[in-house]
């Protein structure tokens, strides 16, 4: 694969609802899902509300348009909702809540987003555990290559129910990018690729949460000097990388 730029980064948004001072360098990272109607907001998970917060922020950063295809990627998605349903099933507490059931699908955030912003553009919802940020970026870049003018990428995960994955302690995080065809005056990214990680700097506060994997890229876009940078997008060896060009 060529390492030439395939997308430009037109907007960025972040939601780190439990982060402390370490998040200040990224600007406003608060939870703000005011785009969702109040009833929906009350009934949806932190995961969905974080995704909407970051997506809305990225769209505003890119100029305000929201009528674009979107790729939502999350390792565990609505696992907190699924946990409640599985507990109800184990306890024989039928009938299940219809709201919990339809809010347990992996494309819950994507569905509510499309309704809230009233877009008929395609919504993708995908998962790849810790490879999620790299592969979500791949999916979004392929959509740009296929002709989409702008694509919204939203990578998000809230904490796991403790009893399911006690080793996966991660802070809730949602990260969104608006991507478009590459132009000279914007940060540009190559198609993600796998390579040995020997010479690579580990991403900032690296854990399994795929959204957190994207913070290294966000940091470099924000603070890096002009020129070409190799940025790691996930853990492991070989790991996923991209080439970032800053104007």
């Amino acid at each position: 694969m060529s390492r030439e730029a395939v997308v430009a980064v037109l907007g960025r948004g972040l939601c780190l609802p439990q982060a402390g001072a370490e998040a200040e360098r990224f600007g406003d990272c608060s939870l703000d899902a005011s785009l969702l109607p109040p009833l929906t907001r009350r009934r949806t998970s932190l995961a969905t509300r974080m995704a909407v917060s970051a997506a809305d922020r990225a769209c505003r950063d890119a100029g305000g348009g929201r009528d674009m295809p979107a790729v939502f990627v999350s390792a565990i998605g609505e696992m907190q909702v699924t946990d409640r349903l599985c507990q109800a099933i184990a306890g024989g507490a039928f009938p299940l809540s219809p709201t919990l059931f339809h809010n347990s699908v992996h494309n819950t955030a994507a569905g509510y987003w499309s309704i809230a912003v009233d877009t008929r553009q395609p919504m993708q919802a995908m998962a790849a555990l810790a490879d999620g940020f790299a592969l979500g970026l791949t999916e979004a870049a392929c959509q740009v290559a296929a002709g989409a003018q702008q694509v919204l990428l939203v990578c998000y995960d809230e904490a796991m129910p403790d009893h399911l994955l006690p080793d996966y302690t991660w802070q809730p995080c949602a990260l969104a990018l608006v991507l478009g065809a590459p132009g000279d005056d914007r940060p540009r990214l190559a198609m993600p690729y796998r390579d040995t990680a020997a010479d690579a700097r580990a991403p900032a506060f690296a854990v399994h949460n795929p959204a957190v994997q994207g913070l290294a890229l966000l940091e470099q876009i924000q603070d890096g000097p002009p020129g070409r940078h190799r940025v790691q997008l996930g853990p492991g060896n070989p790991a996923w990388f991209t080439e970032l060009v800053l104007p």
Partner: protein
Amino acid sequence: MPPPPPHALPVTACAVASDCGVGSRSLLDALRDGRTRLRPPRLFEAGFPAFTGEVDAALLPPLPGHLARFDTRNARLALAALDDADDGLRAAVLRARERYGADRVGVILGTSTSGIYETENAYRSLAETGRLPPRYDFVHQHAWVATARYLQAELGLQGPCYAVSTACSSSSKSLISAQRLIQAGVCDAVLAGGVDSLCRMTLHGFKSLDLVSETPCTPLDRHRSGISLGEGAGLLLLERPQPEHAGCVHLLGAGESSDAHHMTAPHPEGRGAALAMQRALRQAGLAAADIDYVNLHATGTTKNDASEMAAMQAVFGAGTPCSGTKGLTGHTLGAAGGIEAVIAWLSLREGLLPGTCGLRETDPAFDATVLRDTRSGVAPRRIMSNNFGFGGNNTTLLFGWAQ
């Protein structure tokens, strides 16, 4: 860089498992005889009248020992389909790996359940003992990408591997992602489609929405009363076109849209569904008149079928033959797009137009050419297949011969 290939991509192999059996031959037999395989659930007690398309447990092989941590009903469904000797999907994937290199072959798999069935069983232990059973492994069993990673490990592949989970359009979306990965030059071949297994959560979930039929489902019927759930795997291998693929069935184009209307109810006029169909036609460079048959999503709920038929009317008028096949397979949710893609592939190769199993009297509100019985001895050239999911997530695939 070589010029990008056209949108059309050859389907170089496919495989299927459903309540009709393992292998495309069993599905073909079912399409021809038109007899429902839906029965009351055996996997678990439903607690209310229901019919499901359950795969016979004797057909589901255990996973090889070194991959046993991935062992779920979902993974077993995938393995059963993969190893059907007549369909030869495993051999075709290994040929692609040899030809292009392991890192050039992706696995993009649709699912809406993944290993929820195993998690439900594990939660029973959790409730009784306060602990999950020792062999329960969330990452390798329930995580959305678990079955895709299992297939990747089983086949020794190293390309992009992810799960697509957009409810009932999941596996159609996976085929569309596969198409884009090949066109963008990221992959040379992609194993795509979907796998879903029966579980209490989906059966009781749809029941809570009052969408489960108490009899075997009767899509498009004037007295239709809801869905019957099914399970299965529908897997397809898409490749970068090569000269020897000229005679393969091709994925000619695809369309996607959102309703932007409601999480569970479709848009009443089928606005998003019509848009997905129109986008697929546009991408393939075809007109509605070029389509010989439409395999409808046709779940059997009052609203879904009415919405889809309104969209059909808007895009096709009344003359294009159409039908729904979920009376045979049940609604296999995240596997539906994959299994119905295999039905399109079979229809093109075998020269048939599937009927609508369970249909007695077409809803008189539908001004359409709904096929009740399977037509044989025909030669369709282009077939459309629709799948729509929660969140107003719509997909349309177009299959046909390349020339």
